[in-house]
């Protein structure tokens, strides 16, 4: 998975998105906040969602408790 490296740690782009999503944002807002292309944010959020690090509520995405743990360095299994 592109958002998580071989050691179970989140990648830099995933970290950037998880930090941005500590406040709920739409995909478009996340792209602006992170200065990443829309396609990249869509792909990353989908992957982060599969791992349970991000969740969607009412059209906005935010970092889950598991995502916060990942930001603090807890390996993702």
């Amino acid at each position, binding site marked *: *998975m592109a958002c998580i490296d071989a050691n179970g740690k989140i990648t830099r782009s995933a970290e950037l998105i998880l930090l941005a999503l500590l406040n709920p944002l739409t995909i478009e807002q996340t792209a602006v906040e992170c200065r990443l292309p829309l*396609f990249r944010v*869509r792909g990353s959020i*989908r992957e982060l969602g599969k791992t349970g690090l991000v969740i969607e509520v009412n059209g906005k995405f935010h970092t889950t408790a598991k995502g916060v743990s990942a930001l603090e360095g807890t390996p993702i299994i």
Partner: protein
Amino acid sequence: MDDQTDIQRTGDAEEKPASPGIPRIGDMAPLFEAETTFGPLRLEDFRDSWLVFFSHPADFTPVCTTEFVAFAKCYNKFQEIGAELLGLSIDSIFSHIGWVRNIEDTFKLKIPFPIVADVDARVARLYGMIMPGDSTTETSRCVFVIDPAGKIRATVYYPLTTGRNVDEILRLVTALQTADKHTVATPVNWRPGEPVIVPPPRTQEAADERIREGYTCRDWYFCTKELQR
């Protein structure tokens, strides 16, 4: 052309239908999900942007390298017109990563767009990127310009031997955007800022009026106008 040739050609056409699987201008671009150098991506991830989806024959080959260097150098220009780039070849993700790193080392240039690792040629076949007369194992130099709604707006095919002109691809996308925005067409060798073609009138009445509408007209069917900047 003699009758015999005509008959032979008809026979050929019946035996080999004209590649019905190749997506054509006006078709919706076939959807896919694939592994890329930026992680798993779907075609739908590019919606709301123009997309230049292009294939190359193989990583670590010289003509392809010149093309990637040219695409990377023009990347900001594509971004300025709201277009993303997506490459593809029948190579592994590790090959792509190695090649991108090699280009960065050799040419001091990052490849800022993703490349699909289409090892099983699934996407290449979906888009008709393999030309068996050119190579059965490599993708030819194909370009699909896909609009923000996911429709194929232009296709370009070059053989293995011949590198594409990235400036022309940029010009092509700009011309398509201009045509959409202003409901006009663009003449041969058009460049942004140059006059555009006003669509010809489709009734006699409109043809009579056209000449009085203030365009620059060579004749009733051939009128141009300047676009306001």
